[in-house]
């Protein structure tokens, strides 16, 4: 009887120790941070490689499959001066796979040698990635968002939590966490990372003088419609542009 009890106890201890389901708040926070940095790195890579994306013809293989992941890895390590996260959690693994899938979805336009501006900019990539992740049912939602006023893509409109956080971010720009949030009856972990405005953001969102379409043209012929077809917002480098909002269902961490 005692022997059986001990054996059973060992089995229980083994199952308990080997499990990865009991992630504590610190582990969750680290995971969400890694996911956020991976996402931001992918956007940064696309920013830097608009020349390759919009190039008519040529070798585009760096934008696809494992090469694309390696480029995100390099971007991450350069940007954050730390090792790229290990794919030791299904959320990170699926995030990288989904990035590859999004680029593959865009392969026809990316490899279309007749089209110059392909429309694959960080914001559209982020939006497609976020959408694809949300339908995969892994409990991860990522959104590149900002204040509701003047948001270009209605799919990226902030929810109540994001709207409230954005007000705080404008006053005090830093990363905000909520470890005890609840969305539609589900316990979730939320994080908002503000992204500082960069000169390349102003090419579309800045003043008429920032518009690359006006380069070399007489001022009378300048347009305030940017290359994506939207009216430019007249933002300045000191303005708040937007941020990355991550929502992770706690049940998805099991």
């Amino acid at each position, binding site marked *: 009887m005692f022997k059986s009890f001990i054996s059973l106890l060992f089995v229980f201890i083994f199952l308990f120790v080997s499990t990865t389901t009991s992630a504590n708040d610190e582990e969750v926070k680290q995971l969400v941070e890694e996911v956020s940095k991976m996402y931001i790195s992918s956007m940064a890579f696309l920013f830097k490689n608009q020349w390759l994306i919009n190039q008519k013809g040529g070798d585009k293989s760096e934008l696809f499959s494992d090469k694309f992941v390696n480029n995100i890895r390099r971007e991450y390590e350069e940007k954050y001066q730390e090792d790229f996260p290990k794919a030791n959690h299904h959320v990170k693994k699926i995030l990288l796979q989904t990035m590859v*899938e999004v680029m593959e979805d865009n392969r026809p336009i990316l490899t279309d040698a007749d089209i110059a501006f392909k429309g694959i900019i960080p914001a559209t990539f982020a939006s497609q990635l976020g959408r694809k992740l949300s339908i995969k049912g892994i409990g991860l939602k990522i959104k590149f968002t900002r204040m509701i006023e003047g948001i270009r893509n209605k799919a990226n409109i902030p929810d109540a939590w994001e709207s409230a956080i954005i007000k705080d971010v404008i006053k005090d720009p830093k990363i905000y966490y909520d470890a005890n949030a609840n969305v539609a009856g589900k316990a979730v972990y939320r994080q908002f990372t503000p992204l500082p405005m960069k000169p390349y953001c102003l090419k579309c969102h800045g003043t008429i003088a920032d518009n690359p379409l006006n380069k070399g043209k007489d001022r009378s012929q300048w347009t305030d419609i940017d290359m994506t*077809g939207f009216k430019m917002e007249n933002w300045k480098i000191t303005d708040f542009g937007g941020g990355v909002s991550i929502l992770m269902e706690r049940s998805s961490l099991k």
Partner: protein
Amino acid sequence: MGKCLVKVIFFRFKNILNTMLLYCVSLSLSAATIKIGLIEYPPHIDFKKPLSESKLFNYTRDVFKKHGITAEFVKYPNRRGIIELKKGNIDLLLPYDDSDKSVTVLSNPLFYSVPGLCFKKEKFIPILSALHRLKGLEIAIPPGAPVVQVLKDSGAILVALQGSDIINRGITLTQRGRLDAFYHPSPLKVYHTGNKRYKELACSYFHGYESGVFIATSPKMTKQTFTSVDGILKQALNELSYEYYFAR
């Protein structure tokens, strides 16, 4: 801690039981060969090339092979495939993106199709969330195609095309410049790197309006077989999604 331990044990045993169940059912399935109808759906299934070059064919074959089930594939034109499925002459039909409620599909989609617009290259609009750019454009719609609400609200002039072979006709009219754009429920079918016929077109997408592309099942399939096949696909997609398999 005690509660947590119970939870852990429950999840562990649930997973083991699920795997065992799937294994047992796949053993019973393996007694018979599964007959699968294929519909052309480029670039996933392309009848112009050998089947072994179609990634969806390879993925599906391997999924069943892993469970010891031999899949026998038959190529069909779209409508014929559905008729054969309804008659029970085939067990599965793929890929299936019809909205016919009388056809039962497996729970998990293989991939998603996104509707979009195909333009003549000189008139290409890459980002369709810039809806104001569609205002006043003449855009052809194939009859019966579910048109996304944002397009209806965009101020574009929507023209219903008549006649047979509507999609090809719409594309030809767009290429000739008689239409500004052509609405396609799944532009990927025509706008992909393997298709040279439509090289004068470029397509962009209404992201956020995707719909699942599934495997349809025969109405004669038993509940037990359905559960088994459904479980096999679900497990396969969890291990390696078809979309990632296609992208690699």
